[in-house]
């Protein structure tokens, strides 16, 4: 029990030990700046609550376009990375499709 309590104290002190962001200009928070450059998924897990809070306040203060642009950039980045199947993955995909097609054709046509 003592260990669990200690673990919680350590974890929460790390997670919530952030300096509070400037509420007058939340759109310039370091998490938003980082997300603009590298995307929200690149943010460390411990920074996510701070990012969500900052982005919410930023939206309320008229920064809607900025937050939307972060998301659009991230969608586009992921899309560019996995737009085409490369190497063995397309062969694998075709094999899976063929197996499932064969299974469902068998299910419909085979009479027991």
């Amino acid at each position, binding site marked *: 029990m003592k260990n669990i309590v200690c673990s919680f104290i350590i974890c929460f002190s790390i997670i919530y030990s952030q300096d509070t962001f400037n509420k007058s200009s939340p759109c310039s928070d370091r998490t938003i700046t980082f997300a603009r450059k590298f995307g929200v998924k690149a943010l460390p897990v411990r920074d996510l609550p701070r990012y969500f809070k900052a982005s919410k306040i930023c939206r309320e203060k008229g920064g809607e376009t900025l937050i939307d642009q972060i998301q659009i950039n991230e969608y586009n980045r992921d899309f560019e990375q996995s737009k085409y199947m490369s190497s063995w993955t397309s062969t*694998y995909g075709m094999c899976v499709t063929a197996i*499932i097609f064969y299974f469902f054709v068998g299910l419909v046509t085979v009479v027991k």
Partner: protein
Amino acid sequence: MKSQILQFKSIPLLLFMVSLYSQPKISIDLGTGFYEPTMKGFDSNELVSFPTGNILTRNLLINFSVYYEFFHNARVGYNVLKSIDIGRLEGFATSKPVFYRTINYRMIPLETFFRIKPKVELNFTLTPIWGRSRLILETKPSSSDGSGVNTITDDWNELLNSFGDEDPLSQVASENTMVTDWLGYSGMLGYRYYIRPWIGIDVKMGFLNNNYKKNKWRFQGKTVKGPEMKIDEIPIFTFKVVYALK
């Protein structure tokens, strides 16, 4: 020496913290599955009345999975589809034991995918299955009707007889679970829509093929007969919410 032990204990905590700071390409999925097995051993049992099957206990599966994206078009993970049933058994001589049944389809899927649009992904999954089913009987025969005639062993023998096992157990110890394992495979085609860059809704359809044998159940070191279930060559549909920590 004492301080060394304390340091040793803090190592897992440090490892956990390191994983928080890193940027893993990990996603966590939570959802449900839907399939239609035939559970003749429970639904058409003439000797024991099992809890009446319904959509929750027969067709619905709880789905939990974790994936790691090791390549920009492929991910590998661990996926569990779980079916649960619970209720009281009728038809025993003097008792009404509580019955639990679980079926776990544990998978190590290899999934390839590509995005047809920035928010839409198609994925292809093929996976081996290590299935495990458990039957648990919690019985208190002596306190059920006051007579105390029936023992735990008698209850287990009645259950096994209902599955067609006519070789009675001489004595049942405190362990009250019968288990079976089997191997199988599954293939699925999926469609994923990202409502946020890090949250998606994933719908999959495919099949499960399990090599389940009713004669391969284990109970207290002895091979016994279990319920008849048809869980091979069945179509399956899953719906889940994906949270990417990538």
